[in-house]
């Protein structure tokens, strides 16, 4: 899957370079269509990002336009309590809480826009295994193939916030 992604990136670069000569000409229909398609796709992603329903779309391995990182952490705290705790932690952090589903135990938070990225979607889900609650973090970019380490940073930052919040 990763090689397919690299091939598609290479293809996109070649395509943009190849069409560069057309791009220099004003009102070129091919380039305008291409341009509008990219902008349209970006706006589409921007609109649907604020819903938990599109979690599978952003975190799917077949979505070549996003980069995602997955990590896990378990605590011996009940799931219900951990869910409330994470919401509290997110509200006190740099992340913005967008949606939370208490029935499915899922949380969606987004990170702020920086020079490196358009902000990432951070999906958190909870599972119970024995006495432990396993939290699964997915950090996915909005519309970029490389996250410049932002996905990993998001997961690390949130985990650090959780750890420090356990000192009351």
């Amino acid at each position, binding site marked *: 899957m990763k090689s397919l992604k690299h091939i598609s990136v290479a293809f996109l670069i070649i395509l943009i370079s190849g069409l560069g000569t057309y791009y220099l000409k004003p009102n070129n229909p091919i380039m305008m269509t291409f341009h509008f398609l990219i902008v349209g796709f970006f706006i589409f992603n921007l609109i649907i990002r604020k819903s938990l329903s599109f979690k599978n779309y952003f975190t799917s391995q077949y979505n070549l336009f996003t980069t995602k990182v997955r990590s896990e952490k378990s605590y011996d705290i009940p799931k219900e*309590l951990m869910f409330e705790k994470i919401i509290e932690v997110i509200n006190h952090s740099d992340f913005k809480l967008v949606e939370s589903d208490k029935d499915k135990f899922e949380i969606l938070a987004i990170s702020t826009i920086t020079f490196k990225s358009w902000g990432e979607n951070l999906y958190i889900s909870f599972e119970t295994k024995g006495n432990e609650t396993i939290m699964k973090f997915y950090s996915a970019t909005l519309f970029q193939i490389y996250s410049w380490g932002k996905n990993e940073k998001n997961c690390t930052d949130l985990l650090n916030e959780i750890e420090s919040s*356990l000192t*009351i």
Partner: protein
Amino acid sequence: MAIVVNLDVMLAKRKMKLKELSEKVGVSTVNLSILKQGKVKAIRFSTLDSICLALDCQPGDILEHIK
């Protein structure tokens, strides 16, 4: 863990709800629930002081070491 948190016992003795203690101490109910279950990593002296003040008790009434 060898340290047992007896916060629920003290709350019952003082006939106080967790929410009431949360408002008095200024610590969220979620954090107090986690403390009550003894799942916190650490407790600040300032938090312990506030809890003792609100419950009119000693730190030893809340925390107990079991061998």
